[in-house]
């Protein structure tokens, strides 16, 4: 009986699919081929979303508009085994620095609107914990504020520090977890590895939830390094963004 039902439902699905096919026409999805960099890297949008602007609370991060230096470092790190996600490693394994740089510049150059953040209900304690860590850090534990390197508006700093807003919560959690467990590495000195090791699980969870819930500011772009000069507090040396050292107050 269950079998019959299942196969009946299956047949119904097939009929619906057929109908959809007939109605939509075969090449409804096909865009005309153009030999552009966008066409060459169309494969990336399968996970990172149309034009690289992944939305919602799916796992994959938005790449559109991120600083080119940051994207290039990540592409290279996946290729060279410093970041561990086998699908990404497989995608870039056969590509050289020149092409990875071009890909990074392409996605970085896309200036596209962000979706509204997800309405999240955070407890007052969680919000307090997150705001303190994000804006002041914890000097006692040599923990820099997120804003000290990622910019006061958390939209990133040119050319190599990514923005932290508009990213899926799961993705932020996974990255801090990967740094903590040694699955993700950046160039030495690996400042984020230090941050991730010092943060407790509760703190990671609070910060990621808070970041995920923040609306984007009017200016969503990464700021120039000069905008950081007035920042105060500790800031770890960072191999991926050596220019930060020069800007240390």
């Amino acid at each position, binding site marked *: 009986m269950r079998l019959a039902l299942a196969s009946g439902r299956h047949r119904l699905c*097939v009929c619906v699919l057929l109908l959809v096919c007939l109605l939509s026409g075969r090449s409804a999805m096909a865009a005309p081929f153009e030999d552009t960099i966008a066409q060459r890297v169309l494969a990336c949008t399968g996970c990172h979303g149309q034009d690289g602007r992944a939305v919602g609370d799916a796992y994959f991060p938005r790449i559109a508009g991120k600083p080119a230096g940051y994207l290039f470092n990540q592409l290279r790190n996946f290729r060279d085994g410093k970041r561990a996600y086998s699908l990404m490693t*497989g995608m870039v394994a056969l*590509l050289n620095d020149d092409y990875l740089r071009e890909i990074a510049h392409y996605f970085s150059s896309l200036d596209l609107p962000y979706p509204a953040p997800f309405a999240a209900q955070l407890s007052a304690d969680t919000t307090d914990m997150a705001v303190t860590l994000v804006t002041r850090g914890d000097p006692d534990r040599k923990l820099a504020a997120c804003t000290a390197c990622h910019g006061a508006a958390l939209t990133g700093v040119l050319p190599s520090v990514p923005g932290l807003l508009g990213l899926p919560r799961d993705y932020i959690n996974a990255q801090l977890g990967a740094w903590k467990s040694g699955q993700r590495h950046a160039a030495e000195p690996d400042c984020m590895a230090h941050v991730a090791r010092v943060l407790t699980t509760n703190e990671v969870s609070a910060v990621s939830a808070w970041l995920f819930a923040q609306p984007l500011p009017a200016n969503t772009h990464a700021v120039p390094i000069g905008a950081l000069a007035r920042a105060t507090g500790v800031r770890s040396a960072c191999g991926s963004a050596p220019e930060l050292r020069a800007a240390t107050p």
Partner: protein
Amino acid sequence: MNRARRIGAAVTLALVVAAGLWWAWLSDGMQATPAAGARSVVADLVGKGAYLARAGNCMLCHTRRGGDTYAGGLAIETPFGTVYSSNLTPDRATGIGTWTPVDFWRAMHEGRSKDGRLLYPAFPYTSFTQITQDDADALFAYLRSVPAVTHANRPHALRWPYDSQVALAAWRTLYFEPKAFQPDPAQDAAWNRGAYLVRGLGHCSACHTPRNLLGAVNDSQDLYGGPMPMQNWYAPSLVLSSEAGLGKWRTADIVRLLQTGVSASASVSGPMAEVVLHSTQYLSEPDLQAMAIYLKSLPQVEPAPSTAAAAAGSAASPQGADIYDKNCASCHGDDGQGVPGAYPALAGNRAVLMANTANMVQVVLHGGFSPATKGNPRPFGMPPYKLELDDRAVAAVLTHIRSSWGNQGTAVTELAVVRYRDAAMR
């Protein structure tokens, strides 16, 4: 000041000693080095060795992902356990810094290490045995020139009894004999050069010749194609016209494929893409032509007339067609015609129609780019569908592709998909 001078003196002394050792080693290994122009002889030898190292693709196995070049440590999975590649840099403690050219020649030609230990044939000395001693010397000179890296070799993790030298000795009695390359006087120089490269340093048979249960390649089926069990790819036959047989190909197309990773009617993927990326794109046009001439000359085998009643047509489902239209048609075309130079045609494509469907499943699940080569520096990509399509959907769309637009391949089952889902990059 004093300190700087002392450091300077130490550095000079070190350089003099190094030069002396280099010279001693050189004259020890190759008695007849002329005194005049010795430096250019050394440079030439190193240059020749660097080229040969590309031809042999030594770096690919002897470098970990993200690790120091030639410092070894890459895990190579085999049906008998894991073999770890060794450190080939001139580090004296952990590399081959204390080796002589004769030691190196013995490793290449006889598959024996400096200490006499038998080497595992994951190091393809069954092919390398054919290289000339001159070429081995050049390779060694090159390896002496790369930066020394201290990185201790990791012991292999092979299962009993494969981990014993006795078993290896028995295996070698059955399947290995040191053997110099014998030119065929009936063939011209280009053919012989091609044969030397394909059978020797190129070690094409390591993947393209089927292996028996003990992992030995079957010489009577040279380049007949075979599965790569641990990598989960299939190395197509280079003699079967229905697979990657090259008899009917133009020499120029073969050269282009090996040089750039793409040709008019084919592109490389999987392990062969790594071969093009790290090895063949660096080979000279005459050498690639020689390899093409040799490969074209192999006796071609016509496929037996298909008795497979289960042509995919009967298993094709509307689901497969729907998945194709939604995910594939925008690049590969409504009629599987592809876009020349960008996306391969699927209609009439040998790689799509092979009986072994491992490569197709891999490509659909994991996507990827063609290798970025000098001749194709900005390749087009294919997205991975591992997260989007389940095993049943992958089987359905492949069955659709293999039975549409005149294609007459067999159906692909879910079972043929599931085992490749977790095949990770090494």
